[in-house]
């Protein structure tokens, strides 16, 4: 599904990703953890080409997205992304947020897009907010709309970058619930998160990143209970 080979990324002289090699299989849920600044966000953004890659290759469903000939907009429709800061379009209603990309990119008609949008809103439990503007929603509601918006493009892979860390604690649950549901339906997911409970419950695999490298990877139970690397141990002792 996703194959990352020798991925390198520098900002100027600052090498943020040093040599990342990961394969994500279909329907797999991969959780990425690691200290701040370790390159987790940059890693996700490289998969979606929001950052220009400095070295190595990323294959999404077999297509090399670092290849100049690849239509990156085409690839992006296959990969949904959910951001920490939601990034809803504040000038559009909830339903319009969801309808916009299908209509503009897939040239779907307004009726079809709206029907699909309402269906997705039902799925995330917000069908009554369809005509509201994002500003009137709580953080948890915003993030659920953002997930619905990404799903509207019917992606095969979903990337989540700390989807719950900008939320008040009592809203974390409702967002994680939607994500668990997605995982259960077989969505391939890469999730950067600090929610260890979610990682244990839903994750097929956990990657621990530090200093631009994947220091350790394992199934959640093993990694949390028996970390092999010193750095993993140190990090987990602080966080758990």
């Amino acid at each position, binding site marked *: 599904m996703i194959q990352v080979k020798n991925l390198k990324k520098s900002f100027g002289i600052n090498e943020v990703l040093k040599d990342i090699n990961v394969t994500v299989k279909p329907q797999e849920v991969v959780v990425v953890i690691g200290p701040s600044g370790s390159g987790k966000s940059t890693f996700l953004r490289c998969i*979606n080409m*929001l950052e220009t890659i400095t070295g190595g290759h990323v294959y999404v469903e077999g297509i090399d997205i670092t290849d100049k000939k690849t239509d990156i*907009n*085409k690839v*992006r*429709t296959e*990969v*949904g*992304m959910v*951001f920490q*800061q939601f*990034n*809803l*379009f*504040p*000038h559009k209603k909830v339903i319009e947020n969801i309808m*916009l*990309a299908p209509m*503009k*990119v897939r040239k779907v008609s307004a009726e079809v897009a709206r029907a699909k949008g309402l269906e997705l809103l039902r799925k995330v439990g917000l069908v009554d907010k369809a005509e509201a503007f994002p500003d009137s929603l709580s953080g948890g509601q915003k993030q659920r709309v*953002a997930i619905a*918006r*990404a799903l509207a*493009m019917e992606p095969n892979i979903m990337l989540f970058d700390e989807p719950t860390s900008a939320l008040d604690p009592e809203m974390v649950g409702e967002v994680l619930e939607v994500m668990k549901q997605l995982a259960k339906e077989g969505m391939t997911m890469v999730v950067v998160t600090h929610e260890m409970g979610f990682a244990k419950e839903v994750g097929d695999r956990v990657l621990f990143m530090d200093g631009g490298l994947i220091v350790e990877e394992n199934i959640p139970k093993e990694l949390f209970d028996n970390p092999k690397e010193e750095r993993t141990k140190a990090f987990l002792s602080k966080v758990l």
Partner: protein
Amino acid sequence: MDFRWDIIAEYAPFFLKGTLLTIGLSVASILIGTVLGLFIGLGKMMRNKLYALPFKWYINFFRGTPLMVQILLVHFAVVPSFLGTTNAIFAAIVALSLNSAAYVAEIFRAGIQSIDRGQMEAARSLGMTHGQAMRNVILPQAFKRMIPPLGNEFIVLIKDSSLAALIAAPELMYWGRAMQGQYMRPWEPYLTAAVIYLVLTLSLSFLLNRLERRLATE
């Protein structure tokens, strides 16, 4: 001090005519300046530095030199070499429009740059092209943010249009100076002009404040 209300009353019709022209000049210039400014702003934001250069220097020139120089150049040098004759009102509109276009271009750029990077990234990650994202996501938000500074530029234009008096465009300030020339008294004409300008600019900024509050609560 004896303040001669009678001569103000005598000049009232001229002040009225002048005020109308002042408003006309400002409205025409903000409209033309906005359209022109959008193009120049887009030009300056082009990724190719070489193509962007002329737009950058356009902005530098019009923001870096006094409007008085610009008005005199346009009226006595530029317009005659195109039209073969001078035309004060035309020259005033041209100079004020060119000048405000430079400021509008910067307002436009600032408006676009004020939109959170995450908006463009969200749009792109949904598969939209740069152009689609601009049109559907960035520009609508940027335009809304441009309204207050554009309103401010309009206020600036009302005041700046007073320089058209130097080329004898019969706007408000021109009549103030004409009155001063006739009676050789400074207080009456200039205070009258100042009060009218104040009424114009304060009313406009009052309207703008209301508009801004409307937009904020929307």
